[in-house]
């Protein structure tokens, strides 16, 4: 009989330990794979009035095995892309699209406003501070990982 973990137990453990809720939705991903998936701690910054883009920041932490973030999706969002803040030809700020983001085996990648972060466009609804939304991250090795992320105001 295969080893299975009840969903309620996962939620209870995540709540008790304070870790973000991480669960694989990919049936092809083994439990061992999920256990080694990067720890995802992200949040979405509430958009100011009239702004039609959102950004997500936070960190991805390796758990003993290197991995690569390939894609992300959020409920109610048309498109999620990885961007890096770079300098344009004139010395000003420009976003540079990234195809992927490497997460080291034992290290942390910070997603921040002046560096790499996720940009969310095609908003189907308004995202307000205090809400929690589902984000799906696709890693090269861990596969599809579901997390819940909060919407917050910038400080």
């Amino acid at each position, binding site marked *: 009989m295969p080893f299975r973990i009840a969903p309620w137990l996962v939620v209870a453990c995540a709540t008790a330990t304070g870790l973000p809720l991480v669960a694989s939705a990919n049936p092809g991903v083994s439990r061992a794979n999920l256990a080694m998936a990067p720890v995802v701690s992200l949040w979405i910054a509430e958009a100011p009035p009239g702004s039609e883009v959102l*950004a997500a920041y936070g960190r991805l932490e390796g758990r003993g095995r290197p991995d690569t973030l390939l894609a992300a999706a959020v409920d109610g969002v048309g498109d999620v892309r990885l961007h890096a803040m770079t300098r344009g030809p004139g010395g*000003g700020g420009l976003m540079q699209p990234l195809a992927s983001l490497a997460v080291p085996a034992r290290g942390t990648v910070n997603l921040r406003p002046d560096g790499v972060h996720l940009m969310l466009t095609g908003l189907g609804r308004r995202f307000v501070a205090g809400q929690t939304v589902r984000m799906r991250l696709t890693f090269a090795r861990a596969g599809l990982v579901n997390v819940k992320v909060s919407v917050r105001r910038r400080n």
Partner: protein
Amino acid sequence: MRGTPRPGRFARSPALALVVSLGAGLAGAWWSTRQAGLPQVPMAASTGKPFVWSDLDGRWGLVYFGYRGCPSACPTALSGLAREIRALGPGAARVQVVMISVDPARDTPARLGAYVRYFHPGFIGVHVPDARDLALVCKAFGAAFAPPASAGGEIEHALDVFLIDPRGRLRGRLSPPFVPGEVAKALRG
């Protein structure tokens, strides 16, 4: 009639008074903009009034070039400025944060007002309707600016906040995100 006080020339000549007061106003504006080397082009503030650089006289001006569609840099800079301004307490009255839109086609003064007030009720947005004028203003600050390659595309713009002192002189720039207290320190220095 000797000994009877005579009305002054100004009182006798409303037209002359008008000319003199207009001249004084223009001279004041000229002096202020000359100090900062900033071009006085037609600009509208999100308050509904025209904006002139001398509006900042007597206060520190913290000038940022951004736009509402900016995904990360602008909201980060403005939220950081709001935090810094709140930390100034009563001293915040001596500071005016201004965001000049680098996307005048989409950022009307009213829309800019709602945007900047989200961060702090005292912030004002400034709309420069003419693209050539906007380029002049950016150049005067040494602020990078490049229109989008295609309609609706991303706009290259300066990431720094520019400081204008209470006498209208450009005094430097700060790079967000700010360390807490960084703006207060810059205003003291």
